């Protein structure tokens, strides 16, 4: 959205913060109101709202520059068809985005029903939309963020199973997933035992009494406290290319599709079976309906990558207890320094790809959303160092097969997927780029108190 009238928008914020989700009901989600909002601002959005230049300059460089600065584009691998010049939103040729309003609806009358939820959500959205203009907001575009009942994305794999647990949040789970709050929220110590680089108010404005002091003791007020950064990327998925490659590379001697082998190859690329079960624990076949199994590591049962290849998407993005050739303890520590909290929404026809179902109608894809306090060390590190760089572990020419492949490698550059195997490893050559970036941006996701503060600047 664009802020068309800053004072009207601030007036709206001074009331609407009450409709934002809070962590208050984390223990009992049934108490969360059936409709609610989340809001995140771009750097330009904070400027439009009236934040002074000195204060705008106190945000991290990644956020200030945005996703389409040349160096960031290079790190993120947004070239060829993914180049910002072709983006439908978020790049220089598009309308500049000030804020992202996320509208949620949940039908509380019955059991889980996505259709009914959607009606609640749309009604709420229409109510809000009718008042956008008087609230000083102008909608640039909207994305109908869909979900599937079992959280499958368009290649047909269950998504979003592994999430870090914020230390002190009250959520319980595997201790290897418990990550220091400062990795996700400003104002708390991170995995290095220091406070993240939070934005501070260097030049006084607004009601500063609402804000907490900088925990580093600078005497300045912390506008980041309890907030974080949100990364959003709109990713087109080429289901046909993905499954055609799997089919082609696993076909029977007579050239026909070997469905079982194709599914297996897809799972090797991904790191989990379509139903979610990790291939490290179930190396031979999909154990069947929905698996949420997430309590596992690689170091003990899969050190050599014979079950889950080193190059697979999930092993790269979260190597758990087996980073490079480090031991378990150091690996877990390193993994925790690069975790993100992920959310995904689908767009286009809801389609569950498989070896025999490979061509959806029109464009389909996934809206990737993640939260982190240090965009450089978390999201960008995952995209560049662990996905785009082909040198993960002992690998030579293996980018992440899902999100790290280039369309046009340079002359002589190979793009392979190595499947560790006995007696010899297998190489799958000429990986296709199956995910294309079509839009994206870095947003500041303030706490509710800070939203109230922003309404006073």
């Amino acid at each position, binding site marked *: 959205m664009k802020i068309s009238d800053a004072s009207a928008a601030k007036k709206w914020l001074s009331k609407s913060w009450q409709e934002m989700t809070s962590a208050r009901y984390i223990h009992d989600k049934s108490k969360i109101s059936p409709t609610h909002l989340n809001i995140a601002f771009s750097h330009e959005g904070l400027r439009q709202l009236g934040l002074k230049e000195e204060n705008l300059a*106190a*945000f*991290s*460089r990644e956020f200030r520059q945005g996703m389409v600065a*040349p*160096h960031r584009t*290079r*790190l993120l691998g947004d070239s060829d068809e993914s180049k910002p010049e072709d983006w439908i939103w978020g790049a220089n040729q598009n309308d500049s985005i000030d804020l992202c309003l996320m509208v949620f609806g949940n039908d509380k009358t019955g059991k889980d029903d996505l259709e009914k939820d959607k009606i609640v959500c749309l009604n709420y959205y229409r109510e809000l939309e009718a008042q956008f203009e008087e609230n000083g907001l102008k909608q640039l575009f909207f994305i109908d963020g869909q979900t599937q009942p079992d959280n499958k994305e368009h290649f047909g794999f269950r998504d979003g199973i592994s999430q870090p647990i914020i230390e002190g949040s009250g959520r319980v789970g595997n201790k290897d997933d418990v990550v220091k709050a400062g990795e996700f929220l400003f104002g708390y110590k*991170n995995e*290095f*035992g*220091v*406070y*993240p*680089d939070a*934005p501070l108010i260097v030049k006084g404005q607004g009601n500063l009494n609402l804000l907490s002091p900088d925990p580093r003791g600078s005497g300045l007020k912390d506008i980041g406290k309890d907030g974080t950064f949100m990364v959003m990327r709109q990713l087109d998925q080429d289901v046909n290319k993905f499954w055609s490659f799997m089919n082609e590379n696993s076909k029977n001697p007579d050239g026909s599709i070997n469905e079982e082998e194709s599914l297996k190859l897809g799972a090797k690329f991904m790191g989990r079976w379509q139903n979610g079960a990790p291939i490290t624990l179930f190396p031979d076949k999909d154990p069947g309906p929905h698996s949420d199994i997430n309590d596992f590591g690689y170091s003990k049962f899969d050190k*050599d990558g014979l079950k889950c290849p080193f190059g697979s998407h999930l092993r790269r993005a979260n190597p758990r207890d087996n980073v*490079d*050739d480090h031991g378990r303890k*150091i690996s877990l*520590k*390193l993994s925790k*320094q690069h975790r993100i909290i992920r959310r995904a929404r689908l767009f286009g026809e809801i389609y569950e790809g498989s070896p025999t179902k490979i061509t959806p109608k029109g464009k389909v894809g996934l809206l990737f959303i993640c939260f982190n306090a240090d965009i*450089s*060390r978390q999201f*960008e*590190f995952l995209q*560049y*160092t662990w996905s785009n*760089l*082909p*040198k993960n572990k*002992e690998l*030579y020419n293996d980018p992440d097969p899902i999100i790290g492949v280039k369309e046009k490698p340079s002359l002589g*550059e190979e793009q392979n997927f190595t499947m*560790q195997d*006995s*007696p*010899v*490893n*297998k*190489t799958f*050559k000429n990986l296709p780029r199956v995910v294309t970036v079509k839009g994206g941006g870095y947003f500041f996701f303030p706490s509710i108190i800070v939203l109230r503060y922003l309404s006073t600047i």
Partner: protein
Amino acid sequence: MKQNSITILVPILPDKVQELVDQLRDIKRNSLEGVSKDLDGLSIIHYARWVVIDNGKSWVNDNQKREPKLLFVVDYDGNEADMLTALCENSSTIIDLIYVFCTDYPALNMITTEGRVHYLTSHVIKDSAVYIGAPGRSVVQIQQEKRLRNYIREFLDASSWKGVPAQTIHEEIKSKLKASNDFTFLETEKKPMPKINYLGMFLLGLVLIVLLPFLLIWVLIVHFFYEKKDENFTRKRSQLDNDFLNDLELYEDYKNQNQFTQLVDMKVGKVRLISIKFMFVLTNFLIKFLFNQGNLMGIPTIHFAKWVMFDDNSRVLFFSNFDGSWQQYLGDFIDNSGWGLTGIFSNTKVFPKTNFLITGGAYKEEYFLAWSRNSELVTNFWYSAYPDLSIKNVNNNTRIRVQLMKKLTERQAAKFLKLL
């Protein structure tokens, strides 16, 4: 063949600095068909860089007037004179184009190869500690072993090996290579992997134990009489200068490898000088005995790195050639190498607050990352002989070569095949 490193520091003619910077930019722009191609042709240079220093404001706001100087750093095979002669013969035009802007360079109408070599040699400054990620590996050997690995990989990919014993596959690879005639170096040159020197480590440990009481007293002196008075670095990454970061980023993250050049000033006094010299001596021993496996203080991504002191030991340079992105990666090394980095750099001005020489400092992640970036220099020209190989690849390729030539049991052969 032994790898060596050289650092050459030459004053720039005061009114020619901008012309030199522009010249280096042009040389860089045309390097694929120019100097980089020349250096590729020499096959003895691993990495090289030119950096203009003291051109502008000092990062610690030091108001001492400094004359702009040109740094030339080369990591190479064999001896210095041969390398410089080869360089000056093959790239005389480039050398002249650059050094014509420097003081006392011989007149161009009468300069000879010997003249150029003599000029460069007379401006060499001494390295304090040099790390090599693949000791013993020459450029030629690295390229040969890369070719070898790719060839074996192609051979393995061409057929199915299901059920074939590892020993048989090992033997088949050997005969295939023998038949090809492209790998005769395997027979004629034996190249072992360097080994960890446990005896050396033991002796070093003994010496440290004997020295322990003195070291403890020393650290206490440093702590109570020096560290407490230090001016500390307390900026975060978000507070660094935007334009400077733009300049740095302009040269970064094009290939899988990157460079890093850093210049800091020593804290004043003998105590700091002795501390840093001791750390360099220790580092040199550790590099020799322990860090010879492609891993420097727990950092597994460095090809070549070194520290250099100059200007009467008042300033410290650090150079690194490494895989990946420094800014993204640096945090990962703090846990393992924080003590070493702190032990060295805590003796330089405006470092994040340290305690007892080796604690604090680098462990203060946010300040340390910002300090590292802030004291970095723009590298005007950078060359890498094998940008497509990681240091792990280089070492793995040697392991493949070594194991290939041995007689292996079934188990050893299975292990060998895992390297491929």
